[in-house]
């Protein structure tokens, strides 16, 4: 595949842009693949990419019920950070954040990674203590974060009101190397790189059944027919329980809707990401000028991909108190995605009761930031049939052993 470059733009400009190639193919499925990855979202595509790049496994199909990157990869608020409390989380999220730094070069696709910095506001004394503890933990883990006071928050975010009547800003956890990236470009970049390695990305191909024999996976039955596989990687976020049911096991997962919204575009007014977990809201400004706002999850199981009005009201009410200048902004769009919540709010990268089937799920409300690290760790698990150092702690046997990776206190809703 021809590389994207400044030279390529000049070359194509001289010939009326007639030489651009398709970035990824639209193949019919082959009879058999060494590995089938179910789910062409960020995590699934990254899994396929690192299977090829790190392990030389390229007889791979990524099959997708809908369209490429059309699930949570296209529905998140694009925040990338790694300021987690527990060591296993910090390790995989920091690996992921560092891979984002070189992703545009690695994929030869501009993913517009913008390390603009993320502040997580401390608005109660409990949060101040919690984030100071996280900052100390991060120092030991080699993750560069600092706890900053309210005046420093105000200097970084001039539009913030640090003296709100309900929840004054008492400080914040600041990660300068955190930021955002263009979510669609991440999916497209991986899809293009996977196609370049000879992998098949098969869209509009829903899995309807999983065929096993003697406790070992044999094939998947799809809307495009039966496809045999040596190994099967299920990377389908909110729909993981459904696929696990087809394969004959149950997961410690519950699916709920998480929603986000964006405002009309306005002039640049905030060049960092601000998260306010006490009031369940977070906000950043896109390159187009829209204020991108994320809220809380619905409390009950559902697969509706739409969200609910009262959560928007709660989120916007809290953010208006924190950012008074947004009070008259009109909201342009609102949408929901189905997120997969585990009991300890940490992900699952694991072998399963069925031989040759692996799951990567449970990223809950914070999967986008983890895409490259998750793919890296999942590819190692699939290739070696054993987890590497990044994935070892995230096996689902931890729920039986009582060995939780408890991030719910530190990160609550806004993972």
């Amino acid at each position: 595949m021809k590389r994207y470059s400044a030279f390529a733009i000049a070359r194509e400009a001289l010939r009326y842009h007639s030489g651009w190639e398709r970035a990824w193919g639209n193949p019919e499925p082959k009879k058999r693949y060494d590995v089938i990855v179910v789910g062409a979202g960020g995590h699934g595509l990254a899994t396929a990419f690192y299977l090829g790049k790190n392990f030389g496994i390229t007889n791979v199909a990524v099959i997708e019920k809908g369209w490429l990157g059309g699930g949570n990869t296209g529905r998140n608020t694009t925040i990338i950070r790694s300021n987690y409390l527990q060591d296993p989380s910090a390790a995989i999220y920091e690996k992921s954040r560092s891979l984002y730094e070189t992703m545009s070069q690695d994929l030869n696709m501009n993913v517009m990674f913008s390390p603009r910095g993320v502040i997580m506001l401390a608005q109660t004394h409990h949060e101040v203590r919690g984030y100071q503890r996280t900052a100390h933990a991060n120092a030991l883990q080699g993750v560069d974060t600092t706890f900053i006071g309210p005046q420093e928050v105000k200097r970084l975010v001039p539009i913030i009101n640090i003296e709100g009547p309900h929840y004054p800003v008492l400080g914040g956890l600041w990660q300068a190397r955190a930021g955002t990236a263009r979510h669609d470009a991440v999916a497209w970049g991986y899809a293009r790189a996977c196609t370049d390695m000879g992998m098949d990305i098969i869209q509009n191909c829903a899995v309807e059944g999983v065929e096993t024999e003697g406790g070992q996976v044999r094939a998947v039955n799809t809307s495009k027919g039966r496809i045999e596989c040596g190994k099967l990687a299920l990377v389908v976020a909110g729909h993981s329980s459904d696929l696990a049911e087809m394969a004959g096991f149950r997961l410690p997962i519950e699916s709920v809707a998480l929603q986000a919204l964006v405002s009309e575009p306005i002039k640049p007014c905030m060049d960092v990401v601000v998260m306010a977990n006490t009031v369940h809201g977070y906000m950043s400004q896109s390159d187009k000028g829209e204020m991108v706002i994320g809220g809380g999850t619905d409390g009950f199981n559902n697969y509706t991909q739409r969200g609910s009005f009262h959560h928007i009201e709660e989120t916007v009410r809290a953010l208006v108190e924190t950012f008074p200048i947004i009070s008259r902004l009109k909201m342009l769009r609102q949408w929901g995605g189905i997120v997969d919540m585990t009991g300890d709010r940490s992900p699952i990268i694991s072998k399963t009761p069925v031989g040759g089937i692996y799951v990567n799920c449970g990223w809950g409300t914070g999967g986008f930031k983890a895409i490259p690290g998750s793919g890296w760790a999942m590819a190692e698990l699939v290739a070696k049939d054993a987890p590497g150092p990044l994935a070892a702690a995230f096996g689902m046997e931890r729920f039986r052993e009582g060995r939780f990776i408890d991030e719910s206190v530190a990160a609550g809703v806004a993972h």
Partner: protein
Amino acid sequence: MLILTCPYCGVEADETELAPGGEAHLKRATVGDSDEAFEAYLFARENPKGVHFERWRHAYGCGKWFLAARHTVTLEVYGTYPAQTPEPPKDIIAAVKKRLPDWEGRG
């Protein structure tokens, strides 16, 4: 907005008045049970893309816990019933089957 009828006080309550409580009819693991039984009770969930039997509390009303049968994709509610019901009652099952003749029951 999701609206459920509280089987105790009869009020039609929308979701802002209610607190969700997760999957219903779980069988509690107890002393002497295996680690697998405890794991299944505490963490493994049916999480169906379809009919879900679940616990709710009329938190800003009468305060009682009750159970509901609801579709997780359409949010259609098939009925609510008291919390002290070990299995889904016949009339709730009938209400589900009336709308979904192919439904095969709880997984």
